[in-house]
């Protein structure tokens, strides 16, 4: 349920900050006092545990189950040397990239249609887009399990067979395709919302100028709207990729044995194997993957814009 953090940027804020009188130090202290509970809570239950977890990835687990020094990088070399594990990383990247790419392809038409709709149409589409977002991922994944079921009574198979398009039921459930389809559904709003806000900021006169100068709908989009909406695209791409790559439920229910992700590997290492250092190692790999993609997409889209 993450939404664009850019939402709060407002020219008013900047203007007001400039107009603010220099504050007495008392107000400084009051501000700190108001922030203190939240910051302390965050340090105790988020920053500290995350650092401890990451530290486990380079510590040694002893025969009695305790974890301590010496420092070792064996867990990481184990992860990258064993093809079983590196394959899960590869599959995770593949499925998350496919989901993000599909989200871009479908996100632009939907965002453009929303912006061109009447106020009522925009409201209805926003509700339709966001309502599923507030339904638990478990429920939505269950719905996809019903649609993609491999038997004749799966919704998709039933429709395709009734229409005479296929003779035998398709086998989509328990494949990577099933995970990509359901992840696209779960995280699609994360692409559309930043795209809508980026496209809405484009001055309509710029697009009109392109049209007046003879550009068709497609080249106006490709040469004007698309480049100007790249910041929204970067936000959407990063969100969809990161959220898909850190999934657990969707691959657990729809992926079978062929489409497990890093999250499923972590769960297995912690709850079945009790190997905390290795579970922590996979967690570090997952967080590093997500961070790396954040930097890469920021770098690519910023450079394109320059």
């Amino acid at each position, binding site marked *: *349920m993450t*939404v664009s*953090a850019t*939402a*709060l940027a407002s020219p008013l804020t900047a203007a*007001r900050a400039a107009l603010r009188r220099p*504050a007495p130090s008392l107000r*400084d202290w009051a*501000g700190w006092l*108001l*922030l203190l*509970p*939240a*910051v302390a*809570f*965050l340090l105790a*239950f*988020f920053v500290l*545990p*995350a650092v*401890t*977890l990451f530290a486990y990835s380079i510590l040694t687990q002893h025969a009695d189950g305790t974890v301590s020094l010496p420092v070792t990088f064996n867990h990481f070399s184990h992860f990258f040397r064993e093809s079983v594990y590196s394959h899960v990383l590869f599959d995770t990247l593949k499925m998350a990239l496919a989901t993000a790419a599909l989200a871009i392809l*479908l996100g632009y*038409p*939907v965002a453009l*249609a929303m912006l061109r709709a009447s106020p009522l149409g*925009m409201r209805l589409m*926003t*509700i*339709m887009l966001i*309502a*599923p977002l*507030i*339904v*638990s*991922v*478990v*429920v*939505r*994944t*269950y*719905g996809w*399990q*019903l*649609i993609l079921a491999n038997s004749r*009574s799966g*919704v998709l198979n*039933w429709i395709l067979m009734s229409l005479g398009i296929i003779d035998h039921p398709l086998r989509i459930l328990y494949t990577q395709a099933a995970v990509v389809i359901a992840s696209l*559904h779960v995280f*699609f709003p994360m692409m559309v*919302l930043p795209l809508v806000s980026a496209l809405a900021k484009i001055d309509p006169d710029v697009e009109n100028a392109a049209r007046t100068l003879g550009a*068709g*709908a497609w080249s106006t989009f490709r040469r004007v709207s698309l480049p100007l909406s790249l910041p929204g695209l970067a936000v959407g791409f990063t969100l969809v990729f*990161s959220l898909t790559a850190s999934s*657990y*439920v969707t691959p657990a229910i729809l992926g079978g044995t062929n489409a497990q992700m890093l*999250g499923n590997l*972590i769960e297995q290492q*912690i709850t079945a194997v009790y190997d*905390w250092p290795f579970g922590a190692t996979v967690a570090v790999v997952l967080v590093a993957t997500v961070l790396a993609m954040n930097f890469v997409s920021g770098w690519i889209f910023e450079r394109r814009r320059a």
Partner: protein
Amino acid sequence: MNGRAVAASLALRTVTGLTFLFIAAPLVVTMALSISDTRFVAFPPKGFTLSWFGNVVANPDFRSSLYYSLWLAASATAGALLLGMPAALALVRFQVKGSAALRSLLLSPLVFPVLITGLALLQLFSMMGWQVVWRNLLIAHILVTFPYVVRTVSASLILADVTLEEAARTLGASRWRAFVRVTLPQIAPGVVAGALFAFMVSFDNFPVSMWLADAANDPMPMFIYRHATGVFDPSVAATSTLMIGLAIVVVLAIERLVGLKRAMGI
């Protein structure tokens, strides 16, 4: 409009229509199969019965899961408001050094994989020997919900008119009184929207609960997950339909209160 522009507009509408069909599909299918008079979930639904809902509501495990989730989500929301509202106020209205960095820090649980947040907390709680499961779950749920409150409340504080509060101050109201009587009513819809968001984030949460829950502390998503992978009659669809119904009510409430577009930041 020339022919090509008409074709482009038609293509845009078709793709958009199909995409919305795709968005609605799993929810509609789940709801349709929840009233199917068959022993196993199978498409197309046959007949009509509400007996699956009867089964679900009569199931004591379902009821205790539902009550547990409602309690957990309400408590987490209260905690999130207590932590998030003062923090948002400090970030927007007070001059705190490094407030941009603090803001990113407070919102960082939103961009960090939630699954890993839950795992890190499991490790912390087991190292500390904290075995009170409801308390651990509550801490975890406050952690994943309060950034939403920080975000929606600071968004509405930014939109609230400072000059009105300054006018009240000029007319002799104390700082506190001006805030309560002038600013609070302006941000109230944003606060309620943030609270509803926090409530649903907690109510829907799986990736944190999966590490910390146990048989006696069994939130709804955990209950549905177990049944989705192990029960094949339409009662799972009925349970899911109840969850979908709650989500629709909340979405419409947010739309009425502040407008979804504003709540989601577009």
